[in-house]
């Protein structure tokens, strides 16, 4: 789960990481009032879950409350990489003497949290990694001992060599960043940039956090930070029902059990010249109810010209899926053709149920995908 910059900054604030003041606005008038209260120059920043907001025109400088209002009017409602901006953060425009990068991620290959720092702040860290990897410094945290003070200080000195006062400030921020990560159950936490003001103070003027979805069951306060408005409505609905749905641009609606098979099915649609309309995993022990919801979601996408079921029954029982399909089509009429492939647990029962309701079923994945693609293009 992604959270917005303003929410991440709240987390930072609670952990004592220095962030500039600022408030979030949903209307231009509100942005004007916040700018007035802050006084002086402000930055108006789009709050959306994508990178590259600045380049897309989602971050604007304003030297008066009036200008802040105009900037907010331009940014609110703007589309950035397919997402509509519904909130802006209004925050003072800071004078910047130096920019650095600080971050921590769960590193998959070493199975540890890795802290990263770079003097190349303010630009995408992936870009730094690609062009000047020698300018990214790392400390691996042993989960048995947590972060040790010398690791934070060593990393801080990489950024501010010869400036002990600033290195100490940075080391403290690094410790707090790590604590915030553990506390929120984040799999990624970033300050980019960490600026030095002309008076030598460090400040986090941008903040990014990705929360591990698997943490949410035990962190209700963090779970509440989810902004469902910033996500596709169908994806929110699917999640509430225990399905994983991701909308794509094609016209073959896919309904599959298991994430790996779902991806392989999408790939096969492409292999046979079609384009998948979505990723949809109905999960392991799929009840007929889940299948009904899945069909509702797929058919709500008007781009879908053909529906494809690909079920390999293991824990999932094919007859459950068949019952779901039959029940769903009793509740609402399908406007596009459906191709059903099922094999495995209770396959015969499923075929019987489907044929009884006037559907036909296939057992081979390639045949079914080819047919679904054909139906979508004919």
């Amino acid at each position, binding site marked *: 789960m992604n959270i917005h910059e303003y929410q991440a900054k709240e987390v930072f604030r609670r952990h004592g990481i220095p962030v500039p003041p600022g408030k979030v606005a949903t209307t231009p008038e509100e942005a004007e009032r916040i700018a007035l209260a802050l006084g002086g120059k402000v930055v108006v920043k789009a709050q959306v879950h994508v990178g590259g907001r600045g380049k897309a025109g989602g971050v604007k400088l304003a030297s008066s409350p009036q200008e802040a209002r105009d900037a907010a009017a331009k940014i609110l409602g703007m589309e950035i990489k397919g997402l509509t901006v519904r909130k802006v953060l209004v925050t003072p425009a800071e004078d910047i003497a130096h920019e650095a990068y600080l971050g921590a991620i769960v590193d998959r290959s070493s199975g540890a949290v890795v802290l990263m720092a770079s003097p190349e702040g303010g630009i995408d860290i992936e870009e730094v990694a690609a062009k000047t990897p020698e300018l990214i410094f790392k400390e691996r945290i042993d989960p048995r001992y947590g972060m040790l003070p010398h690791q934070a200080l060593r990393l801080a000195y990489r950024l501010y060599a010869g400036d002990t006062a600033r290195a100490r400030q940075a080391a403290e921020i690094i410790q707090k960043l790590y604590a915030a990560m553990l506390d929120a159950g984040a799999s990624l936490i970033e300050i980019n940039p960490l600026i030095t003001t002309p008076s030598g103070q460090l400040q986090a003027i941008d903040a990014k956090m990705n929360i591990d979805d698997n943490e949410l069951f035990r962190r209700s306060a963090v779970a509440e930070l989810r902004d469902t408005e910033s996500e596709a409505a169908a994806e929110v609905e699917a999640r509430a029902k225990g399905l994983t749905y991701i909308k794509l641009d094609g016209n073959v609606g896919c309904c599959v059990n298991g994430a*790996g098979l779902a991806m392989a099915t999408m*790939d096969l649609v492409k292999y046979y010249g079609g384009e998948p309309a979505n990723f949809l995993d109905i999960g392991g022990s799929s009840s007929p109810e889940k299948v009904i919801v899945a069909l509702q979601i797929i058919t709500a996408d008007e781009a879908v010209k053909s529906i494809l079921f690909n079920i390999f029954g293991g824990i999932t029982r094919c007859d459950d899926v068949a019952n779901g399909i039959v029940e769903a089509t009793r509740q609402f009429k399908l406007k596009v053709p459906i191709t059903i492939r099922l094999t495995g647990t209770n396959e015969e029962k499923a075929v019987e149920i489907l044929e009884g309701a006037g559907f036909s079923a296939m057992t081979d994945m*390639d045949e079914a995908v080819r047919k679904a693609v054909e139906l979508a293009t004919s």
Partner: protein
Amino acid sequence: MAIFANDRTRVVVQGITGRDGSFHTRQMIEYGTKVVAGVTPGKGGQKFEGKVPIFDTVAQAVSEEGATASVIYVPAAFAAGAICEAADSGIELIVCISEGIPVLDMLKATRYVADNGARLIGPNCPGMISAGQAKLGIIPGQIVQPGPIGVVSRSGTLTYEVVWKLTRAGLGQSSCIGIGGDPVIGTNFIDCLDAFEEDDETEAIVLIGEIGGTDEQNAARHIKEKISKPVAGFVAGQTAPPGRRMGHAGAIISGSSGTAAEKIATFEENGVQVAARPADMPDILKRVLNA
């Protein structure tokens, strides 16, 4: 021979009385797996299906019944703890089926398992099966048939799909290992490749990967350096968009890294035959086995 587990492996099931645990324990026993004990705190002294003794702790299952392997079906909130308990009790092979374990918990659990000299398979995986000998997890027994192919995969149902295609083509399997779809897991591709390389029964290896991380790339380089047996690969997620988690917590393209194209290219550079579709896998294997 098979790898990691065989018909002598003595299995304890953690969470044996739960909905999933009891269902799959029955299937494991039906397959012929030596399930010697179950663990559910508070139900020690009872018996599962009137036969398998249940204990409150894994330590008891080890000392009373000589359990050497464990299969975990407990809810995500307790699963990392269950893994550590198994490792601390002297279990050598821990198979964790549970999904949804926080990754920060897994950082500690994987370290703890390593410190205790145990092997962890998973979490968020279908487990493993040694054809005709033992099933530790949820892979459907009827799709597997003894034979010379070793299978290792990050996925569940996609593995079944491929294994079923192999079986129908007359290509049986030695062991099939589902290593799991999470970002931080115990046993990885390389561990399984090394074990299959050592296993006399295995003649060729199938490796099924997916988007996210660098495990496939590392495996590809390892294959070139260390694995003499032929390896055929498949990578799911060529049509997956970047930045989105494709069901599995670990199946995500971060920035431009972890794409299917990158993994396929690394396989090809290192001599791994790549199947464009799961259906191509049997032919590739027949070719490499006859070569």
